[in-house]
């Protein structure tokens, strides 16, 4: 194996990633924000490391090795999970794999990919590791502490990264060989994300995870704490400290070899291709009462979404804004009154955004053929709206009713929320197709790491969200008792009149916005030319 080839592969891959990343303003901004928050965190952790070092030196803090063993368990665990996730998503694939594997050996290619990943992790971890090691040594008042802490942390990160690589490649191999996993990998991913959400929201998680961390801390991985604190804490023993170095010397090449074999097994395999069951082949059947072209367009949208749900990942982004409310409800066991209207708003937004916000661009290479068929704008746009509404209206209504009842909304407010849950998605579909046709996006963009799709344009998102907000706000805000109370005080009307007025304004705006958006989209499609 030529190390030079591996380095060359890594250099080219890093150049490729760097140019791709810096070529997009949004990515550069995101990195900027990340660096800012990262710098704040590094500052905080380094300051804490300084005071901990000072406390150990003065004898105020005792038994530091035991606590450090827990840290020695958490650091590689975190790095392993993060790296494995990246490898499963994208990093486990070679760029231009066929060309690469017919030019260099797979070991060199693996070396290149691992070096790339280590460089990426290094670019994130180097500064915190140096800062923590340095400030801790300063706090202790012993400069020689610095190389011990630095070595221990660097070896833990390296081990975690290599283990993560092996774990990620192992998962990729399973997916490549199991038709069941290949078919349901997205659903499994969503389930794992939900479990993660429940875990981080639950107060029980800490006590559930602690035994695992304790067990890892008590394993030989905990010896890295002895290495780090060898010159600092009298309880740090020589034998475990030496043992940590030996573990690293043995484990690094062993895990690297394992990763190399797993990579070869993956890259030289023919991944299973899930064949659609015969029952699925007939899912283009007509929908009763709906014109055939419109029904087929709706069904096509559902099939595409079900088989490639990652294309619609942007629809889930606003959920992060709802996260505090959902977490509060989950932790406290009671539903805040703000949640039903917020869920109505999100449900409506998602109904429109999922299928209708980029009608022209989402056709991709099929657009010329769609335009060359006699399908009318009414059928095309109607089919896309139908795709969102058939799912969006019942789901939004159900969420509104369940959370509305659980939060103790009054009858009138509940009726308002329910009516809005039906009217707002309809308005959303109309507004979305209008905004999407006005600001189409034809080219693919990266919606998450390694996933490119023709997501709606930012202008379409902005216009759509703004108009939908203006439409929905009157009815949704008066459903919340606090806002309603304020409105009653300011306007001087009774509660019921205030609620009814909010609902009436929303229904009126919804009707106008949906009609204007839908009509504009239909006409635009009918008059659309490629150039």
């Amino acid at each position, binding site marked *: 194996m030529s190390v030079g080839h591996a380095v060359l592969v890594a250099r080219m891959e890093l150049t490729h990633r760097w140019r791709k990343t810096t070529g997009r303003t949004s990515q550069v901004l995101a990195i900027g924000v990340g660096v800012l928050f990262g710098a704040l965190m590094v500052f905080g952790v380094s300051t804490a490391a300084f005071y901990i070092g000072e406390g150990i030196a003065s004898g105020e803090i005792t038994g530091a090795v035991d606590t450090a063993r827990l840290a020695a368990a958490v650091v590689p665990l975190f790095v392993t999970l993060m790296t494995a996730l990246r490898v499963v998503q994208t990093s486990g694939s070679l760029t231009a794999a066929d060309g690469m594997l017919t030019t260099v050996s797979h070991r060199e290619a693996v070396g290149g990919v691992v070096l790339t990943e280590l460089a990426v992790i290094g670019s994130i971890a180097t500064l915190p590791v140096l800062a923590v090691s340095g400030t801790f040594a300063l706090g202790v008042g012993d400069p020689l502490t610095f190389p011990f802490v630095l070595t221990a942390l660097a070896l833990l990160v390296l081990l975690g990264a290599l283990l993560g690589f092996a774990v990620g490649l192992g998962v990729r191999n399973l997916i490549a060989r199991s038709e069941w996993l290949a078919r349901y990998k997205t659903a499994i991913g969503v389930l794992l994300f939900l479990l993660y959400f429940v875990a981080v929201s639950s107060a029980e998680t800490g006590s559930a995870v602690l035994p695992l961390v304790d067990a890892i801390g008590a394993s030989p991985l905990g010896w890295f704490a002895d290495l780090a604190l060898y010159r600092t804490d009298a309880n740090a023993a020589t034998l475990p400290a030496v043992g940590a170095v030996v573990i690293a010397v043995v484990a690094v090449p062993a895990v690297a070899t394992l990763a190399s074999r797993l990579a070869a097994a993956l890259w030289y395999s023919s991944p299973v*291709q*899930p*064949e*659609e*069951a*015969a029952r*699925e*082949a007939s*899912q*283009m*059947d*007509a929908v009763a009462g709906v*014109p*055939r*072209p419109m*029904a*087929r*367009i709706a*069904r*096509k949208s559902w*099939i*595409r979404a079900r*088989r*490639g749900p990652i294309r619609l990942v942007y629809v889930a982004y606003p959920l992060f804004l709802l996260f505090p409310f959902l977490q509060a409800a989950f932790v406290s066991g009671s539903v805040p009154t703000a949640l039903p209207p917020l869920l109505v708003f999100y449900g409506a937004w998602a109904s429109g955004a999922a299928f209708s916000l980029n009608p022209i661009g989402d056709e*991709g*290479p*099929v*657009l*010329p*053929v*769609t*335009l*060359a*068929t*006699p*399908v*009318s704008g009414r059928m095309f746009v109607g089919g896309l709206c139908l795709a969102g509404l058939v799912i969006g209206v019942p789901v939004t209504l159900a969420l509104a009713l369940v959370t509305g009842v659980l939060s103790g909304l009054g009858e009138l407010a509940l009726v308002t929320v329910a009516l809005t849950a039906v009217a707002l998605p309809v308005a959303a579909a109309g507004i979305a197709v209008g905004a999407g046709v006005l600001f189409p996006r034809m080219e693919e963009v990266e919606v998450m790491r390694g996933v490119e799709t023709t997501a709606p344009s930012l202008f379409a998102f902005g216009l759509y969200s703004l108009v939908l907000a203006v439409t929905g706000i009157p009815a949704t805000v008066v459903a919340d008792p606090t806002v309603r109370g304020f409105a009653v005080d300011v306007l001087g009307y009774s509660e019921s009149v205030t609620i009814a007025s909010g609902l009436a304004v929303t229904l009126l705006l919804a009707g106008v916005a949906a009609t204007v958006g839908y009509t504009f989209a239909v006409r635009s499609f*009918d008059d659309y*030319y*490629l*150039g």
Partner: protein
Amino acid sequence: MTSPFAIESTDLSKRYDDEIAVEGLDLAVRHGSVYGFLGPNGAGKTTTIRMLTTLLRPTGGEAKIDGVSIADRDAVRERIGYLPETPPLYPELTGREQLQYVAGLRDLPDAEATERIESLLDRFDLDEDADKRVSTYSKGMKQKTGIIQAILHRPKVVFLDEPTSGLDPRAARTVREVIADLAAEDTTVFLSTHILPVVDELADTVGVLFDGDLVAEGPPQKLKQRAETGDERSLEDVFLEVTQEADLPSNGATRTEAR
């Protein structure tokens, strides 16, 4: 009186600002014939096809498909089938679903669509792969699916842009046979390709487009006949000769590659 021509264009032009993509194109393609449309890369072939299929608005001139002006898009769409250079398929759908989808867009009755789809899948040797996702198809399988969806509804005029691209010899022969059958059933085939033997074998008339101008047109045999000596040359020789001869100074406006 019904026009004898399935495709007619008069002075059909497309300009982008000062750039000419197609200039004053006059075409007259008879019903049930195969028209071989040749030209080097960037000559304006795809632009022409897109204008004739109502996907691009001409900046000048007029064209009719089966006697209907291309300005009447709905009526033209009822009459045509189109295979673009890149097979237009959704990767998430299976081949069968893709064809059912397009049949639905064309409002074909379910029974007729199913019968036609099954028969064409069988003919193109795709029946065993019809329930696999398009994303797993080879280039040739995608091309065959694209061809099927272009002729599924028995259009009066079919526009095929590089239909044999990426096909193995057996599939390419099937395509040639299908084209011949379409013509025999009075379907007009407008065939754009760089594979000259295909045109030589199938086309009743050949037109050569160069820099947006139609620089040669006629039956292949006539084009291949050397006027001075009566010798026969290959279609490739004719193509190279006319595209070289035509490379003359233009009439004021800039000539560029067609978009």
